[in-house]
């Protein structure tokens, strides 16, 4: 258990660093990071399902500069790992019904922690404005390293705390009898689909011609659904 938490903390720290500080390769996106978390717990497939659900929600939260947005890098791997840990001892739907909202909550807390860290970075920079104005290379590099280190520590701490809460909780929830469990996946899928479709409209509707592209895509998607659902 403690080794799992430590490794997940390290994974969350690295993936959390990717969100803004380095290298912004989007390994922090839920579809990647939750899958990695699930794979670490031995079930990449359940991690992927958790990641897809979180990814659907993530379309609504784009990482625009100074705005506050959920931080997926440290939260998604824990959600994916929790889903896989629950699936190992009990039912997948109830594990996901815990892991997905838990991932959203942790991402929200992560977003808040990023704002605090940026304020800390600002205080560090303010204290060193004179050195920056003198052209001190040491100060410039020092601020970069300090910022990245603080971000790594921040995301690692969030991931460790989240893992400490999520793993035992999901193992308890997954083995509880839940007659309504078959409704969990349709509910989560409907919520995710609604948020992603609404987000797509918000992102693209102001560009000319997108309506017809959307209708064409919907026709292709619906056609494939009918074909594959038989």
């Amino acid at each position, binding site marked *: 258990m403690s080794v799992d938490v430590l490794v997940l903390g390290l994974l969350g720290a690295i993936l959390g660093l990717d969100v803004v500080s380095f290298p912004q390769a989007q390994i922090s996106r839920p579809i990647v990071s939750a899958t990695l978390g699930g794979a670490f717990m031995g079930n990449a497939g359940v991690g992927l399902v958790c990641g897809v659900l979180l990814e659907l929600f993530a379309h609504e939260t784009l990482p625009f500069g100074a705005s506050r947005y959920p931080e997926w890098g440290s939260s998604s791997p824990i959600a994916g790992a929790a889903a896989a840990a629950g699936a190992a001892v009990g039912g997948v739907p109830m594990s996901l019904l815990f892991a997905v909202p838990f991932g959203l909550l942790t991402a929200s807390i992560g977003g808040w922690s990023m704002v605090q860290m940026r304020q800390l970075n600002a205080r560090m920079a303010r204290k060193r404005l004179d050195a920056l104005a003198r052209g001190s290379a040491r100060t410039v590099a020092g601020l*970069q390293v300090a910022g990245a280190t603080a971000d790594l520590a921040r995301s690692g701490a969030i991931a460790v705390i989240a893992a400490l809460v999520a793993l035992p909780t999901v193992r308890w929830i997954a083995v509880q009898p839940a007659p309504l469990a078959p409704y969990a996946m349709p509910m989560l899928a409907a919520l995710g689909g609604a948020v992603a479709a609404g987000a797509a409209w918000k992102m693209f509707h102001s560009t000319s011609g997108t309506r017809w592209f959307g209708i064409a895509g919907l026709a*292709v998607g619906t056609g494939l659904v009918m074909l594959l659902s038989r």
Partner: protein
Amino acid sequence: MTASTPPVTPRASPAAAMPSLPASTRLAISLRLFAIQASWNYEILIGNGIGFCVEPALRLLPGGKGGEAYRAALARQSQYFNAHPYLSSFAVGALARAELEGQPAARIERFRTALCGPLGSVGDRLVWVGLLPICSFAALLLFGVGASAVVCVLAFLLMYNAGHVALRLWGLQMGWEKGLGVATALGHPILREGPVWLARAGTFLAGAAVPLAVMRLVDGGGLARTGVTLATAALGANTLVLFHGRVEGWRLALLAGFAALVLFLLRHA
């Protein structure tokens, strides 16, 4: 950043020959670009990151690292700056060249200020509302048609980072080539028309991917169960669009998810 910067004497006229940038310096700048936001803060935003990225080029100034020209240039480049992180590479390349050409300090500072707006708005439309959602919806489409975890993850990362890395390196090259005339590069078809076509592709992919992803998520139960779930999602999407700007869907989902979890557990108890 109110303290005055040491004066620097221009060493060349604007019409001077293009200075050369050694491969090792170019490589150092390219690598540093990936950490440009490491000290992002509410005081100078990515200003320190710009200084950090330009610094290897400034070592080529007369007097070398630590010389008067170097320190003056680094002080200028570490002031407030705001732009999209990927498109900041245009600024880094252009500013490195301007400094090595010995452009007047006041001109560099004016140019630096003028670059912030365009690099921010173009980058947001091209990357955050273009490349990123497209790659994400493409990965969801693959998931929907039954691709494995490895395929979904690798396809997303390869597609996204092909665009991401190319944009950073191309920006650095264009910035270095054009120098203070880099504004002309911002009229490049990729930057001007790219966001429009990415939005169209994104809408198509969203339309195709969301129903397929939902279908695979409900997995089993056939067309009726998938149809009901999709109809519910469409109704929810319409509601979110109607309340656009007032309601955030992911926050509602968080509350709904936990409420359902409690209900499902209590239902048995």
